[in-house]
């Protein structure tokens, strides 16, 4: 069984360096090469977390894998799967007088589907940054609690927190709501639950992924049991941390399972992930939120994959509070701009550089689709770390 590290030694405490250790990386690299040789055919794996893509880029981990092993990015970027409806709602609300819209920084530049008037450069849509430039009071926050503080400091304003993210992020929002918030704070409910989306992937035509690196942060909350259905459908699973040693250990675990044919939900990231997750966090989460159908941008409406406020918390729902002031027609709209292939990128059906607008019409300073905006976005990571370029061969004097 592959584990990210040996059991921690007493008294040594947490040593992050361990998980970047070049010697451990080299050992995992040769173990992966051995396993790939034993499997003796091309294997496609997928991770489901934007941070994994980011770290794979930052440490150029694909360079360390044998040619027969490829790792694709799945629907793991909360910014990228956040449906237009919520972005458009945030934009509309930010332009309402007396409203402060508080959002994570990553979300600010993501275009929704409201056309940006006066732009001639293709199918360009409005983002929260554009709303701010038009007078909207849009503020970047680091956590839901910052939004609460803004609400306390501005009792004469309505403060709307754009609650986007996966299991991990929504836990903090639940904790905040459960402990009570000022009356002038509400949230846009755009939180997504990963497992149903992963269960939908194997049904896609042409799906040939053999293993999932499970999102380390999210499974810290939910645990691994919710993924038990996947091995029976032919998909190996392994929890995945984010340091180079963690990522390679997960890849090795998946290859081991594929090599032996003994598919399971392994836990190489056991230093943080418990098989049943974090019981207290799950309990609070389910007190405040319930699972409901939600649209994943460019993918589909997936049953029981969105967190919506339970009845006792309806007062904090921005969609309910501002129902009369939102333009329902403007909330809907074509999901991705013309020519944008974010949907296929998000499903791991293509790599970013197979999209014609990638790096041309769509760049981080002028993003066309959502995957180019957030640091979690696959296109953004590819652009930033040059993953679309030929392997960087160095020639010295």
């Amino acid at each position, binding site marked *: 069984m592959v584990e990210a590290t040996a059991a921690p030694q007493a008294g040594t405490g947490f040593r992050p360096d361990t998980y970047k250790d070049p010697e451990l990386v080299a050992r995992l690299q040769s173990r992966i090469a051995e396993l790939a040789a034993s499997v003796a055919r091309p294997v496609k794996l997928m991770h489901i977390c934007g941070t994994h893509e980011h770290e794979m880029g930052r440490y150029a981990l694909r360079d360390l894998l044998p040619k027969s092993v490829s790792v694709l990015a799945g629907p793991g970027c909360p910014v990228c799967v956040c449906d237009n409806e919520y972005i458009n709602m945030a934009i509309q609300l930010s332009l309402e007088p007396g409203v402060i819209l508080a959002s994570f920084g990553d979300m600010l530049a993501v275009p929704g589907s409201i056309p940006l008037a006066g732009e001639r450069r293709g199918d360009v849509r409005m983002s929260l940054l554009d709303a701010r430039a038009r007078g909207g009071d849009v503020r970047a926050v680091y956590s839901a609690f910052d939004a609460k503080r803004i609400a306390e400091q501005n009792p004469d304003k309505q403060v709307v927190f754009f609650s986007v993210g996966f299991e991990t992020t929504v836990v903090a929002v639940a904790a905040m709501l459960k402990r009570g918030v000022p009356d002038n704070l509400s949230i846009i409910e755009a939180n997504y639950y990963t497992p149903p989306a992963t269960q939908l992937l194997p049904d896609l035509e042409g799906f040939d992924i053999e293993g999932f690196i499970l999102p380390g942060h999210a499974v810290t909350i939910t645990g691994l049991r919710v993924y038990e259905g996947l091995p029976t459908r032919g998909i190996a699973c392994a929890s995945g941390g984010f340091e180079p040693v963690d990522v390679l250990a997960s890849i090795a675990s998946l290859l081991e399972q594929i090599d032996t044919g003994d598919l399971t939900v392994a836990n190489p990231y056991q230093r943080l992930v418990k098989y049943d997750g974090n019981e207290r966090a799950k309990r609070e989460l389910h007190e405040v939120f319930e699972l409901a159908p939600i649209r994943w941008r460019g993918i589909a409406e997936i049953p029981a994959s969105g967190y919506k406020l339970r009845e006792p918390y309806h007062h904090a729902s921005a969609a309910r509070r501002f129902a009369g002031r939102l333009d329902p027609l403007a909330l809907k709209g074509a999901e991705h701009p013309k020519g944008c292939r974010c949907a296929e990128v998000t499903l791991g059906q293509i790599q970013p550089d197979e999209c014609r607008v990638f790096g041309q019409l769509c760049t981080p300073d002028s993003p066309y689709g959502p995957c180019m905006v957030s640091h979690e976005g696959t296109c953004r990571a590819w652009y930033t770390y*040059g993953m679309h370029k030929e392997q960087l061969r160095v020639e010295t004097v």
Partner: protein
Amino acid sequence: MSRPSDAAPSATTARAASRYDTVRLSHGSGGKLTLELIEELFVATFSNEPLKALTDAAILANPGGRIAFATDSHTVKPAFFPGGDIGRLAVAGTVNDLAVMGATPMYMSAAFLLEEGYDMSELERVVRSMKATADEAGVAIVAGDTKVLERGHGDGVFINTTGVGFLADDVLMGVDQVRPGDKVLVNGTLGDHGIAVMSRREGLDLAIELESDVAPLNGLIEAVRRVAPNVRFMRDVTRGGLAAVANEVVHRQAYGLRVFDVAVPVHELVEQYSEMLGIDPFLAANEGKVLLIVAPEEAEAALGAMKAHPFGREAAIIGDIVKKPEGVALVETAYGSRRVLEMPIEEQLPRIC
């Protein structure tokens, strides 16, 4: 200082404070209050002969050689941050711009844009900090200007500094002097300023013991150039961090710049908080760092000279100039894998998770 037309300058001593607790519009109107502010604060603090003359232009001695001339405007939130303040930043920033060109910085002007209502004692602290930094760098603040913006039309204090330095006719540096095989050096840990300032921004308030590196680097640079006369290129590493400078170096050049990830000095706290905030220390701002490209045979001497200087104790050789790939800045990881070091795109914002 904008000189009121007929007021005779009188000798003043550094009386602690102005009669006013806060800045008034009249402090920028060219009248009595302006003169008071100039004499009692700026002239008294900056204290040098050309400034004391209160003429329309400072008349300065010319030591010969070519003139280096640079200007920079400064705004920072908060104005006082761990390890420095906007005053030190404004002086050091312009000193460094001159020094990296191989010039000896000598004179500086300071123009203040103050917001009505700005705290006078805070302004005094800023001005004293400018004086201390100017003394440290051996430059004189010989000219200036004050304007006051109506309340709500400024952000406390903005400072523009313009500096003049002199350089010998034979100083030859630039990206066109850089050759494959040259070594890339920095004078210490990267990202300190960016993370220190961000840690005190509204909404984060991280109580971390990290100080900005803001410092005038002309002394350090002089020490390096004494032992490494063939420095090919220097640039101060400021906004945009290492990534911005590395890309400016290779832009349209027939060589590449390779950084060895593990060789780059990064303060332990910067490392930790960058990870937590999802920020890349290679993109974070610095205010007391310089990147040098040095001929390989002079690299060790340059490194030694920096390590012997208070602002270079953690200097390191962080990379080299390569023949290929051309026009690309790249990072080689501890594992031998390689990635592009892309030009920074936008302001660094904390991420979702």
